[in-house]
C-alpha cells in the first residue's frame, strides 16, 4: 500500500485516501470537432503501459478532493515525485 504525499495538504497520507485516475498529461484536444476519428480515438482510448517511470493523476478523494500528478516507477512502485496540476514532471524516462 502506497504512502502518498498530497501536494495540497502538504502531508503524507495512506493510499486508502486516494484514487488513481490514470495517465497524466493527456490534454483534451482544443477543437474536438476538427479531430479525425483516429485522433479522437487516440485521445480517448490509447494509454501508455510503461515498464518504468509513469506519470499519472491521483485524486485525494477522501481528503481535499484535489487532483495532482505522481511520477511512479511501475516495477518498484517507488513514487519519485509529486507535482501539482499544470506543472511538468522533473523526473522523466530517458
Amino acid at each position: 500500500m502506497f504512502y502518498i504525499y498530497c501536494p495540497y495538504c502538504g502531508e503524507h497520507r495512506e493510499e486508502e485516501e486516494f484514487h488513481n485516475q490514470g495517465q497524466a498529461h493527456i490534454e483534451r484536444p482544443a477543437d474536438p470537432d476538427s479531430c479525425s476519428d483516429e485522433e479522437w480515438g487516440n485521445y480517448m482510448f490509447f494509454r501508455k503501459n510503461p515498464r518504468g517511470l509513469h506519470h499519472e493523476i491521483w485524486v485525494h478523494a477522501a481528503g481535499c478532493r484535489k487532483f495532482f500528478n505522481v511520477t511512479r516507477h511501475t516495477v518498484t512502485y517507488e513514487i519519485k515525485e509529486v507535482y501539482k496540476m499544470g506543472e511538468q514532471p522533473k523526473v522523466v524516462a530517458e
Partner: protein
Amino acid sequence: MSQKNRLQNGGRIDRSQPLTFTYNGKKFEGFAGDTLASALLANGVDIIGRSFKYSRPRGIVAAGAEEPNAIMQLGATEATQVPNVRATQQELFSGLVSGSTNGWPSVDNDVMGLVGKFGGKMMPPGFYYKTFMYPQSMWETYEKVIRKAAGLGRSPNEYDPDIYDKVNQHADVVVVGAGPSGLIAALTAARGGARVIIADEQNEFGGSLLSSKESIDGKAAHAWIADVVKELEANDNVMVLPRSTVNGYHDHNFLTIHERLTDHIADRAPNGQVRQRYHRVRTKWVILATGAHERPLVFGNNDVPGCMVANAISTYINRYGVVPGKELVLMTTNDNAYHTAIDWHDAGRKVQAIVDTRQNPEGELVKAARDRGITVIAGSAVIDVHGGKRVNGVSVASINEDGSKITGSVKKLSADTVASSGGWSPVIHLSCHTGSKPVWNEDVLGFLPGKTVQKQLTAGAINGTFNTAGAFEEGKKAGLEALSNLDLNAVEVAIPATIDVKESKAMALFHVPHTKPTSQAPKQFVDYQNDVTAAGIELACREGFESIEHVKRYTAMGFGTDQGKLGNINGMAVAAKILNKSIPETGTTIFRPNYTPITFGAIAGRDCGALFDPERYSAMHKWHLEHGAKFEDVGQWKRPWYFPKAGESMQQSLDRECLATRESIGILDASTLGKIDIQGKDAREFLGRIYSNAWAKLPVGKCRYGLMLKEDGMVFDDGVTSCLAENHFLMTTTSGGAATVLNWLELYHQTEWPELEVYFTSVTDHWATMTISGPNSRKLLEELIDSDVDVSKDSFKFMDWKPMTVAGVPARVFRISFTGELSFEINVQANYGMHVWKKLFEHGEKYNLTPYGTETMHILRAEKGFIIAGQDTDGSVHPYDLGMGWAVSMNKPFSFIGKRGMQREDCVRAERKQMVGIKTIDPNVVLPEGAQGVFDPTAPIPMPMVGHVSSSYWSACLGRSVALGFVKGGLDKMGEKVYYPLVDGRIVEAEICSPIFLDPKGERQNV
C-alpha cells in the same frame, strides 16, 4: 502411556502445570509452555496426518513456522473451528481440541493410503490435470472427492463469536524477529530514542537461543533475554509484540502484523477480550532479523514418521524437554547439526550414528561428538529409510566427494528417528514481498535478500550469519544504521559475550543419491505438504518444464500453506542437477504475503456484521420503518422499496401504490437523489460543457433535465438541474451516481478548465426531498403553504421552481415530474424532513395520500418511457440510441463532452441498438429483464440477437405489461414484431412500439 518421551528436567515448560488436551478424539496431557506439537511428541504420537496426494502417514518434522505436515484443525465448538494451524506454533492450553486435517476415515487407517503405496508410479506430476480433466463436466464431482480425501481443513459453519481488532501504527523502526540480532537491534534503536516496534511470532523472545544450551554473558541465555525484554518493555517508545507474526511487507515500508492475544489461553477469547489484532504499520525503517530455517535432506522415504529436521529435535529437547525417540541416526552436511546428536546423547538416549556426507569432517563439534563415543560415519549418506508408520531403520552407503553417486555397499542400521541437515536457508520471505529478488550465495549455500528500494536493513541469520556472536554484531550495526538514518545520535551498546564454536566447511548437498536412478529409487520427498518428489521434479524437467517457475506450477512445489519453506531450495537443486545448471542459473525463489496463514477474522477486524458497510438513511427513515416498508439497497442508501399492507403480496402493494398515485396522490422519499450545489461566475458555462443540452439561457427559477455523457458520447448519468440564481445552480444526480458525478465535475474543472471560476459542493444529505405526485397534489400543497403563494397552473409552471414555506418550514419546491403526473418535489432542510412529511400525511389522509417506494417509482416512469441511467443505459448507448436527441444541442459553441464521441463512425451507423417500447402480444406476459430479442425465432441456434429488455413491469394502470428495451434499428421498426425465446422454452411474441405507454401527449402533468 503418559508423556513417555518427556525428560525429567530441563526446558522452558512448567511441569507443575499439567494441561489436558484432545487430539483426534483422544485425551492427552502436556505442560504449560508446550506447543501442541511438543505435547504430541511427548506422548509418542507419531502420525499427525496423511499426505496430500499419496496419503502417506506423516509425522512432525520441524518445530516452527516451516512445519509442512502438522497442519491441524482446532476448535472445541463449531463456531470456533480454525483450519490450517501449525501444531508447532500452537501453544497448548487446557481443553484444547485438535484434529488432523487430512486422513479419511482416520489418519491411522487411510483409504487413500493404498493409492500412495501401490499407485505411486501412477500419480506423476500433473496427475490431476492429466486424469481428471475429462470429461470436463465431471470435474466438479471429482473435485469433491479429491478435496475430501486430501483434506485441506474446513471453515466453521457458524458465526465466529470472537472479536478481532485492526490497529494503525506508525513507527521509526520495526524489528522483525526477536532472536539475538533482533533483540540487540531493538535495544540499540530504542536507546537512541527511536519509536520501535519489535515483533516475534513466538510466545517467548529469544529466537534460536530458546533451542540451544548457549550461555550469554556467562549466564543462561533466557536470563539475558529476560533482561533485554525488561529494558524494552520499560521504554515508552517501544512496543513489544510477542505472538505476533509480521506476515506481509508491502510497498513504502508498510507492514502487517498478526497478533494472537488469546489463542494460547482458550478456545474462545475469555471475557469478551479481543482474540487477535491486525497491526497495519507504516514505519520509517525496517530491520529484518528473521533468522533461518534448517533444510532437511532429500533421500529415500524421508517422509516416514520419525524423520525430522535436525535442529527441530534440539528444540524439542532443549526447549520442551522432549526427546522424540529412542535411537537416532543423524545425517548432516555440516558441523552445526552435531549439536542435535550431542543433545540427544546428553538426554540419555542412544545415538546410533552420525552419518556425515563429508569425507573428512573435523571441527570442535565433531570432536565433541566423538569424545562422547558417538560413531561418526564419514563420506556417507542415509539413502533409504525403513518402516511404515514409524522409522525402524535406515540404509547407509558411502558416497563420492561431490555427493553425486554411491561408491560402496549398503549397510543397514536400526533407528527410530532420523535427523537430517542440509544447512540453513535464510528466512528471506519478507524481503521478497516487495519485489526484491533474492540472490544465491555460494558460501552460505542459500539465497540472501536482494537489492531493494525499501528502507530495509537486515541482521543475523537472514544474511547467512549463523553464529550468535555475528548475529549480535549485525544487530547492533543495523540498530546504529537506523539511528543514523533517522538523524538520531549513536548510542553505546555492549555486545554480550558468547562462546564461539569454530565450525568447519559445510558440503553443498541437497539431494542424496541412491543406488537406483531417481525415477526408480524409493520416493525422495522435496515438498512434504504437496507430496512433490525429486523424481517428480525430474519428470517435469524432462517433460519440458525448464523454468523453475513452470516446474513449481506443474508439480505444485511450494504451493501449500507452508509456501515451500523447507522444500523450495532442495527442489531448485534437484531441477538444477537434471538441467545441468547451477542453482542461480535455474532461477530464484520468490515468496509472497502472507508469511504464514492468517485468519479472516483478523483481516476483517470489526468490519463485519452491522459495521461491514455504512448504511445511509434519509431523515424520514424511522417513519418508513414504522409503516412496514420493505427496503432495497441503492449504493449505501436504504431506500423504501414498497410499503405492503397486511396480507398484501408485493404485486398487490405495487398495484395499489401505482393506482393511488395516478388516481389521487402518492408520495416518494426522494432524499437520496444526489444533489450538488454549483456556484461561481462560470457555473453556467461549465454546465454547458458537461451536459449535452443547452444551459446558456436557462433563467433563474427554471429547471432543466440534462444528460451527462462520457467523452465517447455514451450516457452515464442524468438529472434535473435548477437555476437558483444567476451564478448558482443545484444539480441532481442518480442516487448511486452522486459521488462519481462530483468526481467527474472536479476532474474536468481541475485538469481541463481550471480557468473557469466554479465551485462544487455535495449537499445530498443537507436536504430532505419528498415528491408528491398525482392529480390532487396541488390541492395538498396549497393546504400547507402561505395563502399568498400562487402555485396555480399558469404562475407555477411545469419545470419551474419557487422558494416558499411548507408546513411552516422554508422550502424549495420544484414542479418537475418523474411519473408523468402533476408533481411537486418539496425540499426542506433535512432536520425538518420528518416534520414536513408528517404534516403532508395529516393533510393528505382525505386524498388517500399513499407512500410508494422505488419499485412503484420504476413502474410509473416506465409507463412514461423515462429512462433510469444504469438500468436502461450500460455505457454503450448515446442519447440518439435512447431516442433522446431532443436533449442534445449540437450547435453550442463549446464542443461539450460526448459531442465528438457520438459522431464517430460506429456511433452514427444504421442498425445500432435503439431503445423502444416493447408490447407483448399477450398483455398478461411480463418479460424478464435481460431477455434477448430475435427477429426470427425459427432461425438456427445460435440465433442472431437484436437487443435486450432493460425494464419490464406489470402496469396496473394500463392493465397490461410494459417493457423498455433495445432493438437493432428499433426506432424505424415501430409496429414490427420481435420475439423473446426464454430459458423455460417459451417464445414471447411482442410488438415494437413507442416507449411512452401512457399519456403520450403529456397532458397529465400540465394541469
